């Protein structure tokens, strides 16, 4: 009887330990894959190396930052939370896409505005060239007609006749 009691107690402890381990594993979640880490990393730039995305940066520091992303993903952080964390730590310059605030608005507004203005100016220029080409052959004839007194008399006669 006593042995049965000890056996049951042992089984109870073992079951409790298994539940604790399983619970902890569930809280951490499975380890994120390299693709999941790089999906976030490619939206960030190495804070030290110029213009190198974090997913392809070969330095040890970049490997540490990718490990930070992996850790945050395994803790259930969202992509936005991770990017906000990196901005808080290292500044907005780590973002591959600058935030649309302050002077950064110019990056989003100026290129399409410049394209539209350029297209409009090109349209105006083409139209004026086309009109100039159509009017050019008629100009000398009209000038001759205005200068010649006989042609002027003829036109006047024709108008009176009409």
């Amino acid at each position, binding site marked *: 009887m006593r042995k049965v009691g000890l056996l049951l107690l042992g089984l109870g402890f073992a079951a409790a330990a298994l539940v604790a381990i399983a619970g902890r594993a569930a809280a951490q979640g499975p380890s994120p894959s390299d693709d999941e880490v790089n999906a976030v990393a490619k939206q960030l730039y190495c*804070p030290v190396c110029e213009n190198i995305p974090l997913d392809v940066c070969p330095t040890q*520091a970049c490997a*540490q930052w990718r490990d930070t992303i992996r850790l945050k993903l395994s803790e259930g952080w969202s992509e936005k939370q991770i990017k906000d964390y990196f901005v808080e*730590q290292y500044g907005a*310059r780590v973002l591959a896409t600058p935030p649309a605030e302050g002077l950064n608005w110019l990056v989003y507004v100026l290129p399409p505005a410049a394209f539209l*203005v350029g297209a409009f100016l090109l349209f105006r220029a083409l139209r004026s060239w086309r009109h100039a080409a159509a009017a050019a052959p008629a100009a000398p004839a009209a000038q001759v007609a205005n200068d010649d007194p006989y042609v002027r008399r003829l036109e006047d006669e024709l108008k009176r006749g009409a």
Partner: protein
Amino acid sequence: MTDGQGETAQPASPKRNFGIVLVWVAVLGLLAIVGVGLIRTQQGPAGVGSKPNPFTLRAFDGVEYNTAELVGQVVVINFWASWCKPCEQEAAELEQAYQQFKDQGVVFLGVNYVDTEPEARAYLERFGITYPNGPDLGTRISQAFRIRGVPETYILGPDGRLAHVKIGPYTSLGEIAEAIQAAQAP
């Protein structure tokens, strides 16, 4: 009004003039922004005699240090990173200098530049550094000093002005001591 060939010249409309002015204003505005950016990048690090804006450093142990409250003391501000090999050359000497001068009211602050906390803490433990160190959140402190890399050390005199700037690692304890003593001198 006619020009030389007898053609009648069209006077420029107010609308067209306004458009031209608008385009020139936009172009000049862009050039001004580019110019300001270029001037900033060419400025170089904060120089001796300048007075950097006060900042607050939150150390890894949670204690905050505000340089505005340290006026009247010599403050040694060292920028470093765990991934920085040259920083390792001066780490031990900086700790020795801290031990030598801490009782004279000299404050040492280590600013951890674009690093990760676990590696930064491991670096501090590896070199036995005991003076306050904290992360440069958002790189605001390093931008205020316009640092170009690490390690760089800036020593504020009692008046809050920069008394000494060192780009690169110190080569000896004597070099650090000399810089601090010069900053202490009235």
